[in-house]
């Protein structure tokens, strides 16, 4: 059966993505111990082999099969392979990419598939099966590497310099390049965006923690966690994690009453705690609410007056209660326990949320419970854009999706050569010109290849009006250019 054109197109796109991932993973396996990458390589190639058979790309299937032979040898050698072997594997990736791109049913004009397979068989025949390195067992699929980090304000301060460091490194050569690479990587690891995904899995531990604490305190709690999935920064995840920890513990310890007390006021014996987290427009909203006794505003007022935070003639605190209970060291408890009462929790929650640009609000009702609402701006960590490879510029340049390709500049409009304006080339190079406009200005990208739409991940974000920031396209680092800020 001949596969449909749609199916083939879909295969082509997925296969090229697989090959990109495999190529990056192969480099990672050779440069360091990376069991995750090793697993990924074998899995992806095997999947590609099956998919290619399904859509009738028998040539890709054949090269996959030979490549699997090569990869088996590499695995047996603990990935301690020589340059010839490395080259054969890399060329197999590229060869497959070329086969994937060719039109269905077209002749393999100029492509010598039997010759290529013969070359791989030659490498396999010459490669002795004796392992030269230790064979590694499959390791964990996720390895979290700790790296020192600096505060968010310090990152914002360092970011413009970091982007310049990237440009200098990428354009340097020889020993200078090696030196600058070390510097760039150190800065990148220190201030680059670290992504995290928040979901039910991250917060589930707080539910079991709440139930355990309730049992310890002789209370009954019915906890519900309704958590959506969102991409956030690692700092945001840390702040959310800390907030849920403190606010849920507070709800169990301070808010939810003991069963007999609840019975006296006509409530069911089990207190309810509900945690909701999800996207609301451009925000991530986290709500933690309980049906407990609520915050005693009288007790807060009394403590605030005693500490001199509120004048004694103030009768109603109004909205000020929230600010007071978030003061460092503020507590209405006479004694601190091992659970709470040191007046640290809410202070830490608010500080952590504010540090990542969020807000903390709350409403409480005497005898009816408290609801805490945290809103965090969702970071734009991933964006769609147009990627260009410009002659003499050793990294890709990306313009975000607000720039639209246009056939030619509007009559009389000045046109900016982006690479030249950024100082990435000394003179305007020849070649095909691609024009883009954002409605108010037109820019030119001189690139031999037509623009491709890509998904870029922001690595080092710089506040406006910086003309550029560092992004990654899979594993390749490049610049996201903001032409509207050139010259500012």
């Amino acid at each position: 059966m001949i596969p449909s054109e749609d199916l083939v197109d879909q295969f082509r796109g997925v296969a090229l993505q697989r090959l990109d991932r495999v190529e990056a993973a192969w480099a990672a396996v050779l440069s360091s111990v990376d069991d995750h990458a090793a697993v990924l390589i074998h899995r992806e190639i095997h999947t590609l082999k099956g998919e290619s058979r399904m859509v009738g790309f028998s040539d890709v299937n054949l090269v996959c099969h030979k490549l699997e032979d090569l990869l088996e040898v590499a695995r047996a050698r603990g990935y301690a392979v020589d340059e010839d072997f490395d080259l054969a594997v890399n060329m197999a990736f590229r060869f497959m990419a070329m086969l994937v791109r060719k039109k269905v049913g077209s002749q393999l004009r100029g492509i010598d598939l039997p010759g290529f397979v013969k070359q791989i068989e030659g490498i396999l025949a010459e490669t002795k099966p004796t392992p030269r390195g230790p064979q590694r067992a499959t390791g964990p699929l996720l390895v979290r590497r700790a790296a020192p980090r600096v505060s968010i304000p310090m990152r914002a301060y360092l970011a413009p310099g970091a982007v310049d460091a990237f440009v200098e490194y990428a354009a340097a050569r020889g020993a200078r390049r090696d030196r600058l690479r070390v510097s760039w990587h150190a800065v990148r690891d220190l201030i680059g965006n670290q992504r995290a995904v928040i979901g039910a899995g991250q917060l589930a531990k707080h539910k079991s923690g709440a139930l355990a604490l309730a049992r310890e305190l002789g209370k009954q709690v019915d906890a519900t966690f309704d958590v959506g999935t969102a991409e956030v920064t690692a700092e945001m995840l840390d702040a959310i994690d800390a907030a849920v920890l403190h606010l849920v513990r507070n709800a169990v310890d301070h808010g939810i009453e003991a069963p007999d007390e609840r019975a006296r006021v006509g409530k069911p014996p089990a207190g309810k705690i509900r945690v909701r987290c999800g996207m609301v427009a451009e925000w991530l909203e986290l709500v933690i609410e309980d049906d407990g006794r609520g915050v005693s505003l009288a007790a807060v007022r009394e403590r605030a007056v005693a500490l001199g935070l509120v004048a004694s003639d103030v009768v109603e605190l109004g909205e000020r209660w929230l600010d007071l209970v978030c003061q460092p060291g503020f507590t209405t408890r006479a004694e601190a326990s091992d659970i709470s009462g040191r007046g640290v929790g809410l202070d830490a929650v608010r500080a952590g949320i504010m540090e990542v640009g969020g807000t903390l609000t709350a409403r409480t009702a005497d005898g009816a419970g408290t609801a805490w609402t945290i809103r965090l701006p969702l970071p734009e960590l991933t964006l769609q854009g147009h990627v260009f490879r410009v002659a003499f510029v050793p990294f890709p340049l990306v313009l975000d999706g607000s720039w639209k390709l246009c056939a030619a500049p509007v009559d009389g409009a000045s046109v900016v050569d982006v690479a030249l304006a950024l100082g990435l080339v000394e003179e305007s190079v020849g070649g095909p010109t691609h024009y883009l406009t954002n409605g108010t200005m037109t820019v030119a990208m001189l690139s031999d290849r037509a623009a491709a739409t890509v998904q870029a991940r922001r690595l080092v974000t710089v506040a406006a009006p910086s003309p550029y920031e560092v992004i990654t396209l899979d594993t390749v680092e490049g610049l996201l250019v903001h032409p509207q800020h050139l010259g500012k």
Partner: protein
Amino acid sequence: MVWEPSLAIRDLDFEAAVELGPRALLRLGGNADSAICDPLAALLTGLHARLRAAGTRDVVVDIRTLEFMTASCFNTLVAWLALITELPPDERYRVQFESNIAIPWQRRSLQTLACFATDLVTVET
């Protein structure tokens, strides 16, 4: 021949130079380690642009003094070939490698490279 100073790389132990003309010449010599990859890729992209603009049909790549080239660096040559094969047939140019039989890696690598485009690539020793 016109000397193109911008189409050149001079590193500690690697050198690349281009002479443009009806039959362009790209000389690569020394050791092309991974630090050379990006500059070499940029040079090849630039060379491709110049060759297209000039309508050149033949390029000689002289690697007789290229002692060593990493796989990642060699990949830039593969990517360059891919650029050529993506051109309309009447705009493609041929690439002739002049290799050194005394350097073992060149033989197999170039034979494999030629499999990508037998109609465009020839290897001379």
